[in-house]
């Protein structure tokens, strides 16, 4: 129910693709009628993907229209969360974790390697539009520090050299396996299992 006066929304011909529309319907179904505004965050995520990785004014107004909200309310949310980008970004958004565990394990070196490889500074997008480099706070993969997130995937246990290789591969359009890059599985101890070995052998 609209209970305030609002500026007219201007979303042009922005719309969800068929696939995303199906997702959107599922998301909307989670909330009771009249509470469509609850879907603002997931809708912004869909719109960001629809729009090539960032949220334009049209994308924000479209979400406002879909959730029955005022444009400013959606913009407040979009600007609050660092994972929503309000300016165009590269095809691959490289987020280097700089919080304490990663930092102690050499996050700065990763950042430097990426800067050098891409020829851009933090917060910048490479000229070919392939990469955007930013620093972020803890992404919750401290066991595998240092790590970066590129688009939706985590790349963990990195060295500056490996960082460079990954960027090269991505630039060349190759697939790079996500996860730990040191060969260990998930967040197992380095060099294989260290504890409860007798139980492993018993089994």
């Amino acid at each position, binding site marked *: *129910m*609209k*209970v*305030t*006066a*609002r*500026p*007219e929304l201007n979303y042009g011909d922005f719309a969800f693709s068929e696939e995303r529309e199906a997702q959107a319907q599922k998301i909307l179904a989670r909330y009771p009628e009249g509470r469509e505004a609850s879907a603002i965050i997931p809708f912004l995520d869909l719109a960001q993907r629809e729009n090539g990785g960032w949220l334009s004014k049209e994308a924000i107004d479209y979400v406002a229209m879909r959730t029955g909200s*005022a*444009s*400013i*309310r959606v*913009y*407040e949310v979009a*600007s*609050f969360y660092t994972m929503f980008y309000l300016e165009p970004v590269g095809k691959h958004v490289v987020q280097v974790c700089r919080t304490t565990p990663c930092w102690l394990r050499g996050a700065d070196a990763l950042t430097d390697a990426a800067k050098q490889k891409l020829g851009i500074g933090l917060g910048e997008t490479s000229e070919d539009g392939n990469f955007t480099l930013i620093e972020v706070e803890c992404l919750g993969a401290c066991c595998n520090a240092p790590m970066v997130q590129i688009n939706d995937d985590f790349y963990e246990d990195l060295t500056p050299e490996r960082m460079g290789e990954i960027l090269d591969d991505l630039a060349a359009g190759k697939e790079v396996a996500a996860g730990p890059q040191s060969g260990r599985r998930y967040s197992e101890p380095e060099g294989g299992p260290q504890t409860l070995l007798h139980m492993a052998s018993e089994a």
Partner: protein
Amino acid sequence: MSDITVKVDGVEVAVPAGSNVLQACEAAGVEVPRFCYHDRLSVAGNCRMCLVQLENERGMAPKPAASCATPVAPGLMIHTKTEAVQKARKGVMEFLLINHPLDCPICDQGGECDLQDQAMAYGMDRTRYQENKRAVTEKYMGPIVKTIMTRCIQCTRCVRFATEVAGVEEIGLVQRGEHAEISTLEKAINSELSGNLIDVCPVGALTSRPYAFHARPWELRKTPSVDVFDAVGSNIRIDTRGKEVLRVQPRLHEDVNEEWLADKARYAVDGLKRQRLDRPYVREDGKLRPASWDEALGLVLDKLKSTQADKIGAIVGDQVEAESMFALGSLMNGLGVKNLDCRQDGAKVGGGERGAYLFNTGIAGLEEADAILLVGTNPRWEAPLINARMRKRFLKGGLTVMGIGQPHDLTYEVDWLGDSPALLSAMPQEALDVLKAAKNPVVILGGDALTRNDGAEIAHAAFQLLKLADGLRDDWNGFNVLHTAASRVAGLDMGFVPGEGAQDTAAMIAGGVDLLYLLAADEVDTSALSDTFVVYQGHHGDRGAHAADVILPGAAYTEKNGTYVSTEGRVQFGRLAVFPPGDAREDWTIIRALAGQLGVDLGFDSLIELRQKMIEAVPSLAVADTLPVESLTSVGIAGLIDGQALSAAIDNYYMTDPISRASKTMAECSQVFGTSEAEKATGTHG
């Protein structure tokens, strides 16, 4: 709701359940500093200035609590004067001042700033902060609100005011943490209440653009008065320095304007300095030339003497106070003139019971309503504060608003039934059911409906509909007329309407009289008055003055003591804040001078005598500041309603009268968002 007893600094106080700790402290007379908390807005709890210590039977709470966001519980002990509280508040103040610039000497809020005042009590005398303060770019918010966003302390009062009271979701807090900023996305705030943002801002982040760098609060002389730009009767304070009106601020009146004020009432006052009539003029060879009072009055006297009474007419304007209207009425009576009208717009009201032309429910009474039918009115423009009151009621829930007329965005949900007033006698069944089911139904008739030829029939049909819905009981009167002219109710009260068989406004301006006396009447079409001798008594060189053969300079509402009766029928007093400019005089004295020379005995020589006479003639004017209770048995005339669609009476909120038309600020506002076409403009060209 039952009361809860708590102790504030050891003193017992009972507060209604659901109150918060801050309210309990207020009830106990203990002052709690605050920035984000505002008693008419929702609780945000983000400034942390109102910290207190709480104690219950299990002991003292480990942390101080924000009193605005903590509900009271039985037996709660609140400590506001402990060392811990003092220390906590000092800490909060230090944080607030980290990024707040020390520019009080050049800040317009200086002298009336919450932060400045509270820093006196809780601030440190030096800073421990070595780093650079953050700077925030200024934001565009339109011609009225000036922003200096570096001063913002992110209390979000403006966001909440805009969303909750004004009902325009255009302001938000964007970004986060140290980068948080108030923003409108570079749009002007399209609200008739935007001036109140400046009042709710506790610091100098939002200040008045027209008043910027004009004066300091302690230099101003403050005169309590009443607003005349609509018929709401908002209570105002006129701030003057020397002979200049610098600004108008609202005065608290719970039953009328609460603590808000509409933008026109606040910002049209710069029009008081422009286009003023400060000396008499007479027309010679088709051109107006300055003249002396003797010459101008002499000319009017000659004409009044040489013209037959039935060829003389008088029309009073929308902002005229009761006194000069009464003086003019008495003079015309003395001359035997019956062609009188106080309805420039030709509204078909007056003549019958008093209740038939009042806003009987009262503005505060709207909060009891549960179904409202708007007939031919746009309350958002005709009376922004009544619209805000309806919105307040709407937000509480359980109110259905329906409308007949041109659809407008009133900031709340309105079910527009159609634009034909004939609907009143043929309501859709659903709408009828809503009205019938309502306990306290309300009908509001606006200018669009009443100014039509079938206005009286529409009023009658609306009244019948209300009776059908049982909206007229001993304890409830849901019949309301929403006037837009501040002078209207007083004029109708004293019968400033055409006598038996006499001419009304339409007949007079069509050339039906040889001498037309316009008392500050500017909203009439003067194109057919070329053969009529027009006397214009007023304060602005507007439409009336352009058509005049003699101009007698009068006083604007800030320049005279006068009685005004609001659309509710509430009698209130405007006071002289500055003297009229140049040779201009208070209006009743001009009429008294004319009467003296004509040999008409008006029976008064002073304002007090005039008021006594007026009260004798119109007893209702003696009851000050009270919502009248009028009996009501019939309204209007039974008859056929034309099916023609209702039009919009006001096409530009910012320019409706001589003062606002002369105002630069109002001109800027109408350029940015006044007319409906301009509403679509982005607003960055202002």
